[in-house]
């Protein structure tokens, strides 16, 4: 079979303009892309058999940017930049245009979600990996690296969790390098459940160093290395009605949907709930204390 230290790395790049337009001065989109490009080059050079796939996570859509195994993506270099860089940049620009065009159609609704379509790109990555699994016995070990800065989109909670669980099932680790301001609970959970690494770099100007130190290592070699572990994971779930993170709530016993307050009927599967025990108990308590 393949030698152990070959990796198939699927990189999800966050290209959400609403995040990058408000990002801090230490890392703007320009620097971010530069660091990432050098990192991609590093991976490709580490081993001839390494493969990378780049997926852009936009605001309205997601798409494959680069696939090192495709013949169409092998380009010869001309000009100052190495071939890989210019190719990726070109595709990235085309993607941004497409994303904008798609956004323009929905402009009338004046919605400006600051979150990117992480669930979409995760799903695309997992589909690609599944195809690789089915391509035959010889394939490198796949993993997903999420370069995300946008905050969590609470409306994507369920789809992201589904993607995470299917990654867990296929044993695909989801690593994350989060460059946003506050930690992303979804990605922390993703890394925790799938056995990946979650890093929120303190010094964003050295982003490439973080990427090279932590995320360049293939899966086999990870068993010999100590990689950074986050101090804690925010495990709170989001309720299905308002998508707010809660730590105490109600769970439907039929479909396991989570709600923040008592409902008469489960909105996902339609089961009718009985009267809450808590109300009955508190009535009794009130009566007892009055008497």
């Amino acid at each position, binding site marked *: 079979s393949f030698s152990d230290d070959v990796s198939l790395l699927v990189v999800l790049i966050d290209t959400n*303009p609403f995040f990058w337009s*408000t990002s801090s001065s230490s890392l703007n989109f320009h620097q971010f892309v530069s660091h990432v490009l050098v990192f991609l080059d590093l991976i490709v050079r580490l081993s001839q058999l390494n493969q990378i796939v780049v997926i852009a996570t936009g605001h309205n859509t997601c798409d494959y940017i680069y696939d090192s195994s495709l013949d169409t993506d092998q380009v010869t270099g001309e000009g100052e*930049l190495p071939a890989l860089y210019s190719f990726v940049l070109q595709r990235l*620009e085309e993607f941004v*245009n497409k994303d904008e065009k798609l956004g323009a159609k929905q*402009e009338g609704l004046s919605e400006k979600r600051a979150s990117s379509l992480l669930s979409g790109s995760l799903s695309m990555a997992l589909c690609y990996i599944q195809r690789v699994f089915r391509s035959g016995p010889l394939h490198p070990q796949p993993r997903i690296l999420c370069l995300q800065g946008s905050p969590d989109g*609470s409306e994507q909670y369920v789809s992201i969790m589904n993607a995470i669980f299917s990654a867990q099932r296929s044993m695909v680790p989801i690593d994350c390098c989060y460059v946003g301001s506050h930690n992303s609970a979804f990605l922390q959970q993703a890394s925790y459940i799938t056995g990946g690494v979650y890093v929120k770099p303190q*010094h964003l100007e050295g982003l490439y*160093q973080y990427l090279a130190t932590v995320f360049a290592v293939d899966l086999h070699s990870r068993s010999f290395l100590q990689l950074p572990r986050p101090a804690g994971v925010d495990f709170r779930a989001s309720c299905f009605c308002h998508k707010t993170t809660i730590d105490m709530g109600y769970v439907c016993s039929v479909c396991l949907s989570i709600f923040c307050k008592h409902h008469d009927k489960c909105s*996902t599967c339609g089961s009718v709930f009985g009267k809450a025990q808590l109300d009955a108990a508190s009535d009794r308590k009130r009566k007892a204390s009055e008497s």
Partner: protein
Amino acid sequence: MSSGQVTKRVKYKTSVKDAGTPGRLSLVKERLLFRPNNPNSASKLDMQFKYITNHRYTKEGSNKAPMLNLTSNQACRALAPPVEAPNLGASSQVPSEQPSRDDLLFRARLLQDSSELQKLHQQFVGGGVLTEAEFWATRKKLLEKDSNTKSKQRGGLKSSVLGESKPLIDGRTNRVTFNLTPEIVREIFSEKPAVHRAYLNFVPSKVTEKDFWTKYFRAEYLQRSKNIAAAIAEAAEDEELAIFLKPDDILANETRRKIRRVDPTLDMEADQGDDYSHLPDHGILRDGSKEVPEPGNELYRRTLLQDLNRHAAVVLQGTPIDEEQLKDTQTVAEALERSKQERSTASKDDDSMADQERLKGISQAMTIDDLRGSNDHHLAPLWIKDPRDYFDSQQASSFRTSMEATKGSMSSQEAYGLLRESISQIKSMGLNHPIVAPEVAQKVLSVLTHNISSTKYNLGKKPGESLLDSLPTSVRDELLHHHISIEELMKHFWSSYPITTKYLNTKVIKLKDEMSKMDSQLQKLKETVQPDIRHQITLLIRPMQQALEAAMQHYDAEQQKRASKAREKPNGYS
């Protein structure tokens, strides 16, 4: 005896089945006086000793309720002291029970077995915080374990036909020896009710037991020898023998009802005795293949099939008597007779209704669920919301959260423009050389390694390793002991609320003192422990301290409430 009399609290029964009236029995000079507690009750006894002809009492040390049975010329009286039921129930009542000696022994054994329990016991009961009764009140389950060892089930009957065991045939002395055990007796009486009836009627009045069984086995021997002529001849002579040889008339009457009563869904537990397949001839010595019932001799013939069916029916029914009653033939016979009488009184109900119910039960048990037609009436159809609704409808709620994030936001055009600009910038300017400044790289590396090494040594090398194991054993044991004692205190504290009696009040006060003592102990532990594990100890202790605090706060709040209520004058007078 200064007062010249002995008094004892008893219950007075006129017969064995009577529940008994509670009262006092006094032994005065030459008389027995019984006065019931309830003066309106009619049962009184005033008997002089000379009238008492016989008295029986239960032996000391037996398990039966102590009773004194007096027979006199007038009547038979029985007296029994009341059974004091130990009240190990809710700790809200004042426990007034006297635990029996067995209970005390059992408790001592439990304490010996578990050093943890012993320490707790010493700490609380020895320290006077809890009484013995309260301590054991919450451990009823442990104490009751002993009583459940005696199984309430009766063993089943063996599948092999015990009565068919081969007799010992001695050719020289021409003797045939049959073995008879109480189990075999039980089997014979269960399977052949006519023999049972004969036994009850004839023994010991007409024939002795030995003779009875001799005749019985003679009949068996004749049957087996298939010598019909001899059987008929002997039957004509001896009427008892005839009973054994004729078909069982009781059986014939009960057959139909018995068949209906068989529950096809019974569960049988097999043991060695059921292993008839390893006995020669499967434990059955008769070969029924050559038996052909001849018309004239039907009366005196039992076929193998009849015997087998009868045995099977009896085994399925189970035995109505306990193992202990298999002592001798007389006991077995009487026990079976009693059970039969009970059964017959119980089955006086309407047979047809019982039949219908039984048929319904059997049909329910026998239907195979998979083969039944689909019966969806009681199932609600599965309805899962269209996921598209789910995603679309949630966008409204996400506005609120995202709007906060986009403060001073630019239009989307501008935002995309920024992106495009960045990309073209890279294209034109190329990348920085070096991409990361060396000092920055150095800083990042050192931060990462520090982070990794600190988490490695602080949070444990392996995720499976528990924090407790990493602590020194003395600290760990102390922590665990504190935890268990606090748990015990909490149990008793919270179960005493709401406070209704003075006893509970004193109990709560004692508990509260102990709790504050525990709190200071925990504090001391935190301070004296080594500095490198102090943080973890603090984290571990915190829930315990919180529990203690909550309990003490509750106590103080209740005290205040009580005090304010007391201060208030009734009826609102100021």
